[in-house]
């Protein structure tokens, strides 16, 4: 019954830790776009695709004691870091095992910056459009971030690599 909670806890467990709420939001969205079974519904918000349902699920997992949330003051911003607690590890023993390619996908994403993942997830949000249209949309909705052409190319390459390595 708590299968969706288990999937998110598993995700964080596979990542060992995730730094930043925004980063976690984008990573789950990208994994979902790579056809891993996450049920959270996403909409376009300030920082790109965002899921209120995921925010709620994370809060519940923290309340349940399965996730620990650490808040650190980085002077110009506050960063939240998530780990799976010992109780969470016990909870995961009762859950179905994750897809065997999920760990690799998470590892690739976790090594990237929030800004880059924001770009990748926003491009993927518009993946029903042509490449040029995707880029144009990103420039409209992220006009203040001034993504360069090189960043766009790197993001598309990253998406291709991710898709190839996670073909289910």
């Amino acid at each position: 019954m708590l299968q969706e909670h288990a999937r998110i806890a598993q995700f964080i467990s596979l990542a060992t830790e995730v730094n930043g709420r925004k980063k976690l939001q984008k990573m789950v969205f990208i994994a979902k776009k790579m056809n891993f079974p996450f049920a959270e519904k996403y909409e376009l918000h300030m920082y790109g695709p965002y899921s209120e349902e995921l925010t709620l699920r994370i809060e519940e997992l923290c309340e349940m004691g399965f996730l620990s949330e650490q808040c650190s003051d980085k002077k110009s911003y506050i960063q939240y870091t998530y780990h799976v607690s010992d109780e969470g590890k016990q909870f995961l023993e009762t859950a179905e095992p994750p897809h065997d390619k999920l760990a690799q996908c998470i590892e690739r994403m976790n090594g990237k910056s929030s800004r880059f993942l924001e770009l990748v997830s926003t491009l993927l949000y518009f993946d029903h459009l042509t490449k040029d249209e995707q880029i144009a949309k990103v420039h409209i909705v992220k006009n203040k971030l001034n993504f360069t052409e090189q960043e766009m190319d790197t993001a598309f390459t990253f998406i291709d690599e991710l898709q190839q390595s996670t073909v289910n």
Partner: protein
Amino acid sequence: MEYRDEKLPEEKVFKDPVHRYIHVRDKVIWDVIGTREFQRLRRIKQLGTTYLVFHGAEHSRFHHSLGVYEIVRRIIDDGFSGRREWNDDERLVTLCAALLHDLGHGPFSHAFEKVFDLDHELFTQQILLGDTEVNAVLKRVGTEFPQKVADVIGKTYPDKLVVSLISSQIDADRMDYLQRDAYFTGVSYGHFDMERILRVMRPTEEQAVIKYSGMHAVEDYIMSRYQMYWQVYFHPVSRSAEVILTKILHRAKQLYEASYIFKFEPFHFKSFFDRTFELEDYISLDESILLTYFQMWMKEVDPILSDLCYRFINRKLFQHTEFNPATEYRKIGELEQLFKEAGIDPAYYLVADSSSDLPYDFYRPGEESERLPIYLQMATGELSELSRSSDIVDAISGKRRTDHKLYFPEDILEQGKEGNPLYKQILDMLKG
């Protein structure tokens, strides 16, 4: 005269219980209202299963869509027009987006989307851009016009002010549904001084803001929203109806996949079960069709499908109990096992459901909130985030409230408890 500027010979009005009158002068708006895709919204209730609790809540998405249009029309024509920050060229696209923002909602949207993994926003885009009557009307304005309307609704339109009128923490959508849902449910919450808010709303480059003198009207609006969520939208009994509705669709899908022979074949659902549906399949659906299936499926041989349909049609809903996932997740596992041993399928008869709302949220530098805040325009012209000036809003800002319930068929367990000790054990666990 170009179609985009064409006016009706006489203004048309729709009598409306919330805004008194909905005024239409633009030929484009009148033509859009007449399309089959817009008329379909008459057959989709605004509040889904809520009518099973608040019997007056039979109003449709058609009512609401007209209401959002009327609010935006008043904001533009009575408030923004002629102001430097507002571009009158955006008037028609904004009105069309307001009118059409819910066009892609399906029957009992929430449950239907969940079971079939759909997104009504994508359907809105497809109806606007596909081979539809709405698209044909919009295209008469200009070949790019349907895309512009779709971009406003999809929040990707370059003019952020336009987007904010349809989608923000104080937008026309919320202002209409709060008042309309309060009116039709008959509750006393949900009312606020919208006239005042519209009078103090000002355009800026990024979004609509509120003159400082209107702060108390906005406080009232936020508290109304808070009350409506907990008193109406998250009512535990309408959630029970929603749970049963979701389970009916799941069961029908499962039976179809198992090649079950239906007495009343699910013609309208097949393409959704197979994921081969086309836009026309979606547009053809409405709530009357779903209710017809539920009526017919009451006579199915499958006991689960017929029981769930009987429950929904005759309002024999599941009972609920409070449930804390943090401390009781193991209990759920035990209950599931007991349900199986008792011969009751827990996949359909033991359901956890959570509701959660964040009444108002705002961004502070360094934090990661995703919502654009409500800004007050101070006497100096500077903008100040609402909760910095309002103690009331500050008290509830960023505070999420969540409610977890466990739904189960108490009637079955009560009736069977004398003959089956497992039923009594389950009841004791659920009620203990």
